[in-house]
Structure formats: C-alpha cells, structure tokens
C-alpha cells in the first residue's frame, strides 16, 4: 500500500456526519479527498446525538437542504451500504392548548404557501391514535410523516467507510493546528505534518470557529453540550418521535423498548478536554416534564445520561456555503443541535457547490457573511 496522500483536490476538516458526507459526495464526483479528524469519526455531536431525522418544525431557511437530505435518508442503504438503523415512524409536535394548536395551524398554512407540504396538522383524535400515551387534554398537533430516527455513530461511520471505499483518505487522530493560504493552495498544518489542497471545507463542529478565525472570518459560535437520558426497556407504547410546543422535550422509544429523553438542556462543554459535565438540576426538570406527560414512565430507571459537544450559532441556523472572503474555502458547521438529519443532503449540496460553483438547492440565509460582513 502506498503512503497516505498529503495533497488532494479537497481537504475536509472534521469527521462528523457532515464532514464524512461531504467527503463521500466529493469522492463520488471523482475528486480526490483528504478528511482530517482529531479523534475518530463521530466522536462528538454526530455520534452521541438523539438520532432524530426530523424535518418537523425546522426553520424555513433550512427546509430545502432538509428536503434533499430526507430523500437520501429514505434510500440510505443504497447510498452507504448500511441502513444506519434508520426507521421512519414520523415525528409529532404536540400542542398542549388551543392556542398552541392555532399557532401550529398558522405555521402549516405558511409552509403550504411556500410550497412545502411535509408538515400536516392533526386533531386530538389522530394525535391519540399516533401517541396513545399522551395526556387527554392535548388538542392536537403537527406530524411530519416521513421523519424518523437513526443510530448516530453507526450512520456517521457508514458515511466514513463509504467515503473510504470511494477513495477518500480518512485520517483519524490527526489534529489540525493551523490553516494558512499559500497562493491558491490551502496549507493545513497538523500533528502529523502539512496537507495541501486548493479547496478546503471547514466542518469542524464545535471547533470550527477557530479555523474560521484563523482565516479571518470570526464567528460568534457558542459551544454547547445538549444532554440526553435513556431508560431501561419498557413495553412498546409509542412509535413516532414526540416533541412539544411549549416545553423542552423530545421523546423516542426504540425498538428494544428503551426510551430516549432529550429536550436541549445543556450541560457544560469542556471542548479542550473532549469532556462534558452534566447538570443534574436541568435533567431533573427534563425528567419532571416526562413525569407530568407520561405517567407510565414514572417508575422506570434511567440507565445513562450523557452530553455531546456541539456548536450553536446565535440565530440557531448553520453556517453553510462558500466563504465570504476566499475562493476555495467552504463552511459547514454550527448546526445548533439539529444537524444530524441535514448531514447526508448537506454533503451532497456542498460537493455540488465545490465541483460546479453552484447548486439549485437554495441556501440563502445560511452564509457566513451574516456574521462577518459589516453594514455598509
């Protein structure tokens, strides 16, 4: 076997689902790719998130990207030779009051006018048919029927393996120390030496702001540690993933009976130590919501709780697309705790932009310029 390459058409920094997906799609388009990952693929947010494959309740600016991604999720086995544990039983947004439901209706009507039809208003009867365990007082909600869930680390590593198969050089345990411009070439200095390429993708997740700052595009990235809990197995009682309008809760029962409880409560991230600290007070609040809404859960043991290290932008939207400053530089980070579903599609769109300079999929509103450009 020849030595691993140190130069390529494209260098991707970051082995999360986004970096791996972009590497795969670039390789599928015939580009030579080097992916640099400081730990192993999916070590952080991509490997330990809730696994929700959700279009429901997304910001409008993300929906086109999310649509591309959902189409890929529904043929994920063909794409990466692994079903990634993907199941599609829908995701339901539960309204607890008539006022909530009215807001849901307004949202669905707005989406319809924009030409998006994945969200569907449901009444109390349909809600209880889908989620029999939910409290009687809830008047309805919204369902996105093609939504579902997958196994995060398995999915991320499937993208990694497939990218490797397509010729990408995946370098795990390689830590980027400095990025600089050398004429028209990017020079990426690491703990194992320099790597060179004319095109560079910054998909470094919670560490991406450092690379952006190195290149003169500083962004206000917040490092968060969204916490999750999982229970011992219970008899099957809920199929779709459930999220709430008013409260911070996401809720999913797996095929083996265990229930994943999340809601976006953040612990403390220590990104330089690759470590998180849980906040049990917030988890207690999280557990209290479940205690209120699903009485049958009260006696079940919580067997594990954890948090991932993730990047959040002030407007909760990712930074996605070409650099505002340099040709040959692309950003793909800051998915603000909802980037897992976007991974497959965002990689495809990014590869298209890198190869052709453009994409038909609108990504307006996601560019880095919104943070870096001064008002004229």
């Amino acid at each position, binding site marked *: 076997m020849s030595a691993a390459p140190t130069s390529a058409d494209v260098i991707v920094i970051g082995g999360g689902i986004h970096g791996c997906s972009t590497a795969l799609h670039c390789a599928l388009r015939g580009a030579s790719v080097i992916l640099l990952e400081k730990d192993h693929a999916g070590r952080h947010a991509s490997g330990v998130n809730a696994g929700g494959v959700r279009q429901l309740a997304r910001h409008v600016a993300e929906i086109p990207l999310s649509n591309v991604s959902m189409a890929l999720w529904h043929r994920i086995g063909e794409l990466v030779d692994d079903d990634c544990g993907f199941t599609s039983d829908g995701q339901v947004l539960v309204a607890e009051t008539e006022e909530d439901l009215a807001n849901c209706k307004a949202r669905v009507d707005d989406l319809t006018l924009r030409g998006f039809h994945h969200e569907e208003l449901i009444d109390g009867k349909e809600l209880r048919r889908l989620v029999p365990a939910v409290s009687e007082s809830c008047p309805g909600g919204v369902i996105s029927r093609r939504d579902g869930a997958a196994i995060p680390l398995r999915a991320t590593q499937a993208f990694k393996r497939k990218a490797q198969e397509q010729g990408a050089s995946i370098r795990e345990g390689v830590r980027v120390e400095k990025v600089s411009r050398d004429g028209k070439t990017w020079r990426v200095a690491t703990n194992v030496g320099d790597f060179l390429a004319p095109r560079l993708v910054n998909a470094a997740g919670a560490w991406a702001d450092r690379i952006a700052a190195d290149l003169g595009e500083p962004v206000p990235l917040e490092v968060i540690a969204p916490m999750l809990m999982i229970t011992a197995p219970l008899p099957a009682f809920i199929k779709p993933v459930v999220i709430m309008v008013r409260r911070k809760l996401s809720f999913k029962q797996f095929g083996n009976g265990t229930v994943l409880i999340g809601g976006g409560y953040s612990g403390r991230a220590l990104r330089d130590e690759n470590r998180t600290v849980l906040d049990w007070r917030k*988890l207690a609040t999280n557990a209290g919501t479940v205690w209120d809404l699903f009485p049958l859960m*009260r006696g079940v043991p919580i067997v594990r709780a954890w948090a991932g290290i993730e990047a959040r932008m002030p407007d909760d939207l990712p930074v996605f697309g070409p650099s505002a400053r340099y040709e040959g530089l692309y950003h793909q980070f800051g998915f603000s705790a909802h980037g897992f579903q976007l991974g497959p599609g965002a990689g495809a769109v990014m590869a298209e932009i890198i190869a052709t300079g453009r994409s038909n999929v609108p990504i307006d509103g996601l560019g880095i310029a919104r943070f870096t450009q001064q008002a004229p």
Partner: protein
Amino acid sequence: MKAVTAIDQFEESYDLVVVGAGPAGLSAAARAAELGIGVLLVDENPAPGGQIYRAITTTPVGDREVLGADYWRGAEIVARFERAQAGYAARCTLWSIGPDETAAEGEAFEIGLSLDGRARLIGARQLILTTGAQERPFPIPGWTLPGVMTAGAAQIALKSAAIVPAGRTVLAGCGPLLYLLAGQLAAAGAEIVAVLDTTPRGNWLKAAGALPNFLRSPYLAKGLRLMAKARRSLRFVGGVTGLAAEGEGRLASARVARGDAAEIIACDTLLLHQGVIPSVNLSNAAGCAHDFDEAQHCWVPRLDNWFGSSVPGIAIAGDGAGIGGAESAALRGEIAALGAVRRLGQIDLAEGDRQAAPLRSELERALRGRRFLDLLYKPAPQFLAPPQDETIICRCEEVTAGQVRDTATRLGVTGPNQMKAFLRCGMGPCQGRLCGPTVVELIAQANGTTPAEVGYYRLRPPVKPVTLAELAALQQTEAAVKAVVR
C-alpha cells in the same frame, strides 16, 4: 457512628465522603473521623463489611470455622468504625459524581445519592472511592444457563443467608478465592463433586521469578492452608483447557477439556471464578484516568502515593486501586484518609508522612508476593476471549463473541465505545461491568493490538440506575437552588 436512615438527614455538604463500606472504606472513614474531619460513609448494602466481610455483624453462619479466622478479622474493623464519629448511610446508592459548579474555589464535588426511593444532590470537598473489586467475567459456552453462577455470588449467599447450593456442585476457574470458597462451601455442607482448575500450566514458569518474594509473604501460609484444606477433601482437576456449561433450559453438566482429553461431569450448580479486577465504573465515570496493568491484566486507576487519582480531590483505595486483598485494602484506606485530611488542611504534609509511615511499611509487607499470584493466576487466553463465536459476552444485550470479532474486523471498529453503536454491548443496565473486559480483549485480538491500545468504555452516569420519579423529585441543596436562581 451516626446512622443516616432518610434522605433529608444528610447534611448539605461533608468534608469527606467515602463510598463503600468494605475494609478500605471503613478504615478510611474511621481514620479521618478520628482526626476530626466531618465524614460520611455511604454503602449500598444493609450492613457494613463490603464483599470480604459481608454481613460480618449480621451473618447467620454461627460456626466460626466455616468462614474462617480471616473473615472474623473484619469484626475489629467494623467496631473501630462504629466508635468513630462518622456518618453512615446503609442501603444508599451513589449514582453520580461531578464538580460542584457553585464552589468558589478549591476541590469540591456534587454527588447524587439515593436512599429509600428518594434522591438528593449533596456536596463533598473530598471523595474516597472504595468500591472494591468485581469478579473478572468468565464467558464460556452456556454460562447464561440457570444453575451457572459466579463463585462470588455463592459466597454472598453463604455469608449473608447461610445458603449453600443444593445438589452436585462444581467450581471452576483459578485464583485464591476459588479455593477459599471451595473450602467454605464444603465446610458448610455443600456437595462439591469437583474443583476444575484452569490455571495455565505455563504460568508456573512465568511466576517463578516472583517466587522468592511470595515465599516471604503473608499470602504463603494462607494460600497453603486454603489449598491443603480444599485438596484434602475434594476432587481437584488441574490443567483444564476448555470448559462449557451444558443442558436444556438449565445446567445439566460441565464439559471439561484437558488438552485432547474430554470429560462430562453431571452437576446442578456450576460456580465460575477467574480472579477479581478493580471495579472501575465509578472512578471512570468520575473522569479519573486509568491504565492497563499488564501483571493483573486489568484496568487500574492512575494513583499517586496517597492514592489520589488524576482528578484532584478524588482518591481511590482498597481493591479498586488494584487488587491487593483485604489487609492491604484497610491500609490503603487509612493512607488515602490521611491524604484527604491533608488536602483539607487539617494536618500538614510532615504530619501526614509521619502517620502514614508505619502504614506504608505494613502495606509493603501485605503486598509482598502479590505479583506471584497475579502471574500465576492470569487466566488463559481462551477464557479471556472466548474462541467459540456463539458464546454470549454481553448478557444485557445478548451479544456474542462472534459478533464482536466480526464487527471489529469487517467494520474496522477499533474501540469499545464505537462497538456500542453497532452492537449495543455495554449499553444495558450493568453498564458494561460484565462485558467490558471481554469486549476489549476480543477487539485487541481481532485487530492485533493490545487491551491498553484498545481502551475502555467511557462510562456514563448515573453509575447505578436512578428512577425517573427520583430524578424528577430531586431534592436540591440550598446552595444548588441558589446557583440556579443566580
């Protein structure tokens, strides 16, 4: 000793919290309390003693000969603890350790406790973890059949309830505890049809270099006594190279291989044991660094000479610091206590050294010869990483050795944390206690690396399960409530 019997009786914070009431924990708590430190000792069991001195104050086994003189030594350790001014919470589970985010400075922790179905977060300035050892997993074909248990489980039944296995009993494996238990069970009236020794013959040669120290060690007399007692009365089968439990729906027999020779021994109970390893779940979840100890062939926490871990303020004593036995556990507990008392500023370094000096020389004596035992009773490779593909290695999630090997090679999985995502091994309620060492061994073997390179599970709190209701109703300290309001 001040018994704490309800969750609201805990103080908001303690200078020192000791976790586990075996010889190390009891001695640590007693020593620190004697030096005027506010100490809380929490333990999951109904009575003090840990595993080695389990039920020492309550055992129904009246005949002192059955459990032996070494067991009854525990009574003095418990008596000393009872005289000391330490808090003691029995039936209390510690499920999390984290930094106390409200602390202005210095070493401070927030710990999650459960007692009688209620949970609470309290503070601790120093922690000593004395959660001891667990039996090394012994995965053989059929080990999940009813009728197969670990030797340690049988010993728990004997000590706490004077129960011995009914019917024909076979003990199998290696290590001092196996011979001790054989003797104890025989004395208690069990029908032991065979003791199958899996100690690899080649180990005698490897251990020979460590023999001189062993000959001068306290282990020797004890070991000879155990062996002689067991061998005199029981059928000993040495050189066992293969073992399987067989039966339809429950154990009917043990299939034994000795090289090319095979034998089937009909039995009703098969007790497995191949040594003990430090129980690292709590120290791992608390963020303490661990290293792979080649001689003991297990993960041990990285400790300084006061048994302080890589996390300042957390010490680890007893067999959890590396296997050393009951006598060394008590000494380590006392040294760790001196370390904690010193960190709290109650004594200075010179005084700590002065008080620790006799303990350190005792400890050296107590551990002399340990290496010989480690080398001699290191399990054979086929009992660390089962060669049969169909052998279950993760009992919670029913994952087989073959699945782990296949996933390691086919999908290029290099560590146990990645393996979890593919096979769910280590994700059940035992949190990998029963599969961790085997998964590491299998990955190392499949990838041609070593357990040290493979690493271990990153363990997640709660270290022991806590119910949703307990968590939802979590009683918070006043300081913690203030921190949230702020």
